[in-house]
């Protein structure tokens, strides 16, 4: 699709325009963390961020939400969320994560709750520069071609505005006063230089994903899992902050009057004690070791087998937030270490 240029001085007007199209969310600094929050003033936006605690999944599969209400007469679905949400400042890794969630929730069987939220969400991406926790170059998710409505690449004096959908095209038409189509040779050179600079900034390289699935299979009975299991706090943080983890639990909650209630969906984590418990109190994964093994075999092996791509988008959230340093980087390094000592095999 089309690409435009927008000078930086036009950006506040662009935000004002976007705000008329729906509720605008964007990265906001809150003490030691960043979070996608509702934006009332363009000054609240802070694009100089690495990662929010929760990704875009907070809009698509919120941590906790009601799916239906019930009373003595019957049930009523809570599906429609007519409000349009626009989230600006989404990095390529998080857009890839949304693509993975779309594949799961909008596949053969559409999840109506996800579908309505997805339909009402406009994603405006934003370019980023990596820190030492960014692994997206290794996972192949550092660039994004689709999955967004608009994408802004920030160069020195202007933004390149990439259009990724009809929704995005409609926004550029509305904002046509702020955009120009003047893409010169110099623009292209500037863009290429920026890309080269960005590529060279990746400091942390994960062991190759080319054989990750094989390496996990070979390590299935490895002692590594025990070592990580001993350390794991079973706190669930890794999966709650992971932008692609989407397992949920469902509970019916009755109100105090014992006559009506609601059904609630809440994000779950496979690292919690009863995650794999089935009827009759049979638990397939009673210990931390097997639960961690499930997490990583699913994310780094099963996803590759099923979709040809890992369930990790390299956002670095588990690297940042696990209190005891169990994350895709430390786990994959340990797994590769078991089978190969020489670096050449790993790279």
């Amino acid at each position: 699709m089309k690409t435009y240029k927008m000078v930086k001085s036009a950006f506040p007007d662009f935000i004002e325009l976007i705000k008329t199209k729906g509720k605008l969310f964007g990265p906001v600094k809150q003490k030691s963390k960043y979070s996608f929050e509702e934006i009332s003033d363009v000054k609240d936006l802070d694009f100089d961020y690495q990662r929010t605690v929760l990704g875009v999944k907070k809009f698509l599969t919120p941590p906790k939400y009601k799916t239906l209400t019930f009373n003595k007469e019957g049930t009523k679905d809570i599906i429609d969320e007519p409000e349009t949400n626009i989230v600006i400042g989404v990095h390529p890794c998080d857009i890839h994560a949304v693509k993975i969630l779309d594949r799961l929730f909008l596949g053969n069987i559409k999840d109506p709750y996800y579908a309505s939220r997805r339909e009402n969400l406009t994603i405006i991406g934003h370019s980023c520069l990596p820190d030492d926790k960014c692994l997206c170059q290794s996972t192949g998710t550092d660039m994004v071609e689709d999955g967004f409505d608009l994408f802004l690449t920030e160069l020195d004096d202007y933004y390149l505005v990439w259009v990724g959908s009809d929704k995005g095209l409609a926004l550029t038409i509305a904002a046509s006063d702020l955009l120009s189509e003047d893409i010169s040779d110099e623009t292209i050179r500037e863009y290429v230089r920026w890309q080269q600079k960005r590529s060279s900034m990746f400091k942390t390289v994960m062991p190759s994903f080319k054989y990750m699935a094989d390496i996990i299979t070979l390590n299935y009975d490895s002692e590594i899992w025990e070592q990580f299991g001993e350390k794991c706090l079973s706190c669930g943080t890794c999966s709650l902050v992971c932008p692609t983890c989407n397992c949920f639990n469902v509970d019916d909650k009755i109100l105090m009057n014992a006559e009506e209630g609601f059904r609630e969906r809440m994000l779950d984590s496979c690292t919690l004690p009863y995650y794999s418990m089935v009827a009759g109190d049979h638990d397939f994964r009673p210990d931390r070791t097997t639960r961690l093994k499930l997490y990583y075999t699913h994310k780094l092996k099963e996803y590759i087998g099923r979709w040809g791509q890992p369930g990790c988008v390299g956002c670095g959230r588990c690297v940042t937030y696990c209190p005891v340093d169990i994350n895709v980087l430390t786990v994959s390094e340990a797994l590769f270490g078991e089978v190969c000592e020489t670096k050449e095999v790993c790279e």
Partner: protein
Amino acid sequence: MWKRDKKPVVGVFGFSGCAGDQLAILHMEDSTIDFFTSADIKFFHMAQSHQEVPKVDIALVEGSINTERQLKELKEIREMADVVVALGTCACYGGIQYLGEDVKTFKERMKYVYGESGEVPEFLDLVGKPRPAQPISEYIDVDIMIPGCPISAENFVPIYTKLISGLLPQKYPMPVCVECKYEGNDCFLLHGKYCLGPVTSAGCNAICPSMDISCVGCFGTYEGANYPSMINKLKEIGLTEEEAIRKLKLFGGNKIEQALKGD
């Protein structure tokens, strides 16, 4: 659709504690009236002057057991109730009054408080002969535990309403960290500050971490807790092993005691 044949008979009983869990029930505001109409409340010392206790279907028991008389009453409650619910951290794990259990003997503690004789004054005889504080599960079978200091309505109501509707509440233990990440909070442990979220039962909606205050563990122990790793982490951020264990014991009661012994 579920239906109930009749309202179950419920009793709310309090032993040693601050009575905050009973107060939390009365403090549910919009739901308080419903509490008294959705079940047949036959015994609730804090709220009613007229008390009857022939037999209850569900007994909500708050507080730890600290005297012989309480122990006798607790056993009577177990006899007459179909379902016994331990309400609050004191009833579930022993509460703060469980602290000191391993520091001094009970006799030494009595002497420390009541003087050389180590005996309680006569006028206190009406509460019965003192015993070391224990959670109610030490003496009777407990069907459901709802920890909290005090319990939160959001956690209590769905469990309680399932019980009075004749349904089985979902048992799904999770630590405070889960609710903390639901709120999108950063982690104290990553910034060199202690927090007991990973070893503490959820149910509070991570209210303290969301207000930038470390979790002190008031909802009691989390079933999946990994204490050795937690203690290591606390040591890593500058606490001594002794300090770390003391923090864990504050609300951990008998469960921490058992965990540290390796039971």
